[in-house]
């Protein structure tokens, strides 16, 4: 699966403009990147958990999708697409359908890490042949930036507000990619928005064209929730990777593979400083919070390196 950037950019768009996502949204950049990995001529059904993406890309009667699309509810994108995919196999078996379809469903971190986790876990364990894509912006952005289990420690959200007695969210993020990998699914990939989009494209293509349940976790920054100027999204994503806050890795049929190791790992401050949600960490007297944050990033990075080194 070689990557010809210009040819990929020349493909017909599968996410139409005119959707109502905010200016500078990372979610739709991620959706475009994943849908671009579908081969031309292959049909698809796109699914969606309730969230920003859903209420903005299919406002009656305006659908932004070129392909068939189904939204059901917040907590059941996995089960819903499992039903669609099963119907596909029956219709094929009964000779009612000859075309090839691929199935991709998108959920934010709220619909994926939290309320939709059971439905996702069930669908992954049953190994339905579809891709679940989490566009992770680390909070419930649709309802107004409430914390989720994907929210990093110390982030200032509307339900973990920073105040005189609070430094923001008190808990670490859930490691969802590992949880899904523990389902023994064929493919799990973690990526974000980078450079010429080769990493995300390669992983999306693998996920779409690997038989069985596949999972992609994509960091997709939210300028409103993270509080940074909209134009800076690509810098922030790069810093997420260079600080090892958001490592690029995949678990391909059980094999853990580190896709990128920074030559010089940058300090976590570089990732946190541009984001208003971490502003309080840079106040005098909060140095120990930054140290703790760095320790957690280091611990996770070392754990990932260890897992990947075993293969």
């Amino acid at each position, binding site marked *: 699966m070689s990557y010809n950037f210009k040819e990929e950019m020349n493909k017909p768009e599968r996410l139409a403009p005119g959707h109502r996502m905010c200016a500078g949204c990372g979610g739709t950049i991620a959706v475009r990147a994943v849908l671009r990995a579908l081969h031309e001529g292959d049909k698809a059904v796109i699914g969606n958990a309730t969230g920003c993406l859903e209420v903005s890309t299919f406002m009656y009667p305006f659908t932004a999708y070129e392909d068939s*699309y189904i939204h059901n509810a917040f907590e059941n994108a996995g089960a819903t697409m499992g039903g*669609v995919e099963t119907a596909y196999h029956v219709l094929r078996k009964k000779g009612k359908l000859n075309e090839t379809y691929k199935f991709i469903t998108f959920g934010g971190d709220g619909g994926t890490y939290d309320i939709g986790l059971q439905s996702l876990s069930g669908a992954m364990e049953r190994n339905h042949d579809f891709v679940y894509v989490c566009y992770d912006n680390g909070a419930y952005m649709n309802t107004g930036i409430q914390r989720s289990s994907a929210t990093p420690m110390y982030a200032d959200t509307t339900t973990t507000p920073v105040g005189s007695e609070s430094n923001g969210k008190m808990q670490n993020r859930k490691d969802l990619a590992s949880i899904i990998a523990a389902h023994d699914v064929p493919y799990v990939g973690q990526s974000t928005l980078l450079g010429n989009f080769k990493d995300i494209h390669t992983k999306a293509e693998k996920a779409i064209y690997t038989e069985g349940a596949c999972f992609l976790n994509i960091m997709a920054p939210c300028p409103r929730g993270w509080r940074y100027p909209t134009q800076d999204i690509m810098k922030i994503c790069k810093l997420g990777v260079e600080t090892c806050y958001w490592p690029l890795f995949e678990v391909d049929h059980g094999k853990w593979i580190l896709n990128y190791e920074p030559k010089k790992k940058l300090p976590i401050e570089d990732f946190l400083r541009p984001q208003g949600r971490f502003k309080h960490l840079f106040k005098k007297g909060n140095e120990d919070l930054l140290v703790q944050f760095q320790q957690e990033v280091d611990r996770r990075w070392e754990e990932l390196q260890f897992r990947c080194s075993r293969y």
Partner: protein
Amino acid sequence: MAVRERLSGNEAISYAIKQVNPDVMPAFPITPSTEIPQYVANYIANGEMDTEFIPVESEHSSMSATIGASAAGARALTATSSCGMALMWEELYVAASNRLPLALCLVNRALSGPININCDHSDSMGARDTGFIQIYAENNQEVYDNFVQAYRISEHKDVRLPIMICQDGFITSHAVENIELLEDEKVKGFVGEYEPENYLLNPEQPMALGPYAVSNYYMETKMAQNTAMKNAKQVILDVGKEYGELSGRSYGFFEAYRLEDADYAFVIIGSAAGTTKDAVDQLREEGVKAGILKLRVFRPFPDEEIAGALKNCKVVAIMDRSESFRGKGGPLGAEVKAALYDHAANVRAFNLIYGLGGRDFTVEEAKQIYRDLEAYDRDGKAFEEYRYVGLRG
């Protein structure tokens, strides 16, 4: 020739499912509906049907996957009871508002708490406003017959609504009775192939389902949904009649049992109608003009027809097998009384609660209620309304 058999209600509906051979069935076990997915899984395991069974991790996912399969263009169904249906509550609304013609085999059971596995109607009565068509059965034969008719009603172009085929937990689902089954070809011919006009997997035309709709669309959408439910009335009658021509067993909105000249009547749903029929037969021998309106179709609610059938009665007991905690009776009572009022049927009607959590309902109790109705009517003796039948203390 029809096939004579002895089956439980769960076996009967599973056999009907096998004959209809739908495309996709996601389900999750819960007493007393568990046997339905078990039977279906066994039929599939032995090559007797080619439905795809999805062993989901919860009832929420069973209805979610049923919705996905139905939207994709498959004929889909699930089965559940009680708390299982409570868990899929949100999805019941989604199925109906998306106008997906799927089936839910409900085995009625009390809702928690306390946790109780036995029959009452609190699960389906709670779901009466979800937009599902609801059809109830007195016995195994009716369960079977109702399921064979289900998709013809639900998939009809003027309807396109999900349908709930209800039977009483254990009393019907687990009791083995004589039953007459139709031959496979007859069932297949009657039900027909599912050929939706639009569906997700239509290669000719993509489809988008489940939008966000602003206030300017929402009420119009609900009126369209409500109109479809009203349209279901004629379709239910047409299908019930056609089924009668096929099987010798016709169906309408309700069965009027010795009701035509009745002074005193029960309005009742489900298996307890069988018990009440015994009571009515005995009372008739004694000269009491007792009758029954056994309601089969609760959604759409045949209010005009009910009022018409009851209008010549002197006193009516509306028997609810669920509580609505309004302090004055159950859901059937409220709706039947509204029907009587709306259609100016000047009939005194009382509302009673019976059989909650599987409490026995006996012929003697039914007879006593008829006698009390008569005493109220003839002697002016006070009738204890909103009583719990068979309650201690």
